[in-house]
């Protein structure tokens, strides 16, 4: 299996290229426009992989995604969880909870983990060339190393924010406990953010990977006894909102164009 994590340090953002070298096919997860489509295309080519799927854990609010452009450039499908239907204004290929995408001997299974956003989905990776046991989970903005994805990023549009902040905190707490912490403990955790990212709280580690074993025991937010305590803890340890997040989210949802986004960011 080929597995590469790309870190864009200015935004503490991690994206991924993974695939099967024998099958010569791979997926890109959460590509960031600051690295650009060319970066992913060239990295995939260096590894001898054709990009057949561009996956996103959720519609991002803190960085501009290049998933649509990358999918178009490579002819790959652009995947989001089906709950994004009605939220985004463009065509994409919907994923159902539990659905598995496969390239060669590599399986990527969607695990729906609403909380940070309603459509948020983690991707469980298995390399059947080694074993049928899952090996890693790409956790997006749900479970971070040492922290959790904040449940309070509103776009400010009633139509789009289908849950209140308290509801999303509860969903986040339950999604992680019930759907991620029930995975085999050896499974490695690869998040979408780390370190100084404002998508999580002050306890977010600068280390960009962990394990379920470690986070179950030492993640402070998730060690809170119940949802109410978790909600309080997350509020108390929150960081400032990501810069321009409403504009970025609007662009990533397809509500505004790149030009409109750039115009807004300039002012």
């Amino acid at each position, binding site marked *: 299996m080929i597995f590469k994590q790309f870190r864009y340090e200015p935004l503490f953002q991690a994206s991924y290229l993974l695939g099967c070298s024998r099958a*010569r096919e791979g997926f890109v997860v959460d590509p960031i426009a600051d690295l650009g489509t*060319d970066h992913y*295309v*060239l990295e995939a*080519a*260096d590894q*001898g992989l054709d990009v057949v799927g561009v996956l996103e854990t959720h519609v991002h609010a803190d960085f501009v995604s290049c998933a649509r452009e990358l999918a178009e*450039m*490579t002819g790959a499908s652009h995947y989001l969880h089906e709950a994004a239907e009605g939220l985004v204004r463009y065509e994409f290929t919907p994923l159902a909870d539990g659905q598995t995408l496969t390239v060669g001997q590599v399986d990527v299974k969607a695990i729906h983990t609403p909380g940070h956003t309603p459509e948020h989905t983690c991707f469980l990776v298995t390399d059947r060339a080694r074993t049928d046991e899952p090996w890693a989970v790409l956790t997006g903005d749900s479970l971070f190393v040492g922290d959790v994805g904040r449940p309070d990023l509103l776009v400010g549009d009633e139509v789009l924010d289908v849950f209140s902040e308290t509801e999303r905190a509860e969903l986040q707490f339950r999604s992680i406990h019930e759907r991620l912490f029930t995975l085999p403990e050896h499974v490695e955790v690869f998040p979408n953010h780390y370190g100084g990212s404002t998508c999580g709280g002050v306890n977010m580690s600068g280390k960009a990977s962990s394990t379920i074993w470690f986070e179950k025991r030492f993640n402070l937010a998730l060690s809170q006894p119940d949802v109410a305590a978790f909600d309080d803890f997350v509020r108390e340890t929150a960081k400032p909102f990501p810069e321009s997040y409403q504009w970025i989210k609007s662009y990533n949802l397809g509500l505004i164009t790149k030009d409109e986004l750039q115009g807004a960011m300039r002012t």
Partner: protein
Amino acid sequence: MNAAEVAAAVDEGAVVLDLRPPRPFATGHLPGALTMQFNRADLGDRAELQLPQGIRLVVHAEPEPIAKVAVEILGEEGFEVLGHLEGGLAAWREAGHPTETLPLIDVDELHDELDRYTVVDAREGFEHRHGHVPGAVLFPPGDAWERADELPAGTPLAVVCGDQTRSAYVASVLRRRDRDAVLVMGGMVDWLERGFETERTAAPAA
């Protein structure tokens, strides 16, 4: 360069270098195109070892960012690169130009039909000596362009190497020279994995 410009350049003797993977190349490519596998790490080194000097190149690679990087890499290596085909194979076809194919077989097919083929071993002498498909003719890629006419026309040639990286290049050279070449996917690594027989020949006396 658009399709018309590429076609004109080819008419004037430019050679298309197709950097897509073997399967898309096999399915359809510009007539007479040579093929190599793209990467950033050593495309320049491999091109320098294999491609003939003095030819003028047009790059075909998809998606487009790969073509642009390849043009740079080859230029830095000292090749004369006229440009790359914008819009790729789709643009070429839309402009009404024909394409050619390269037949692919695997080692099982080669093994089953071994007497039908002349096997061309696109590796170096020491690799061929270490063990080759019975009857395989040594044909290193660095000499392929110069020696293509030494191989017979009108009879099927099955080209092998370690996997299919070098053999794809040699097969494309042979097809450009109207040889009936087919590419053996998986090469000697697959052949050995299957446990098929190989033969060794002694090194020629110095």
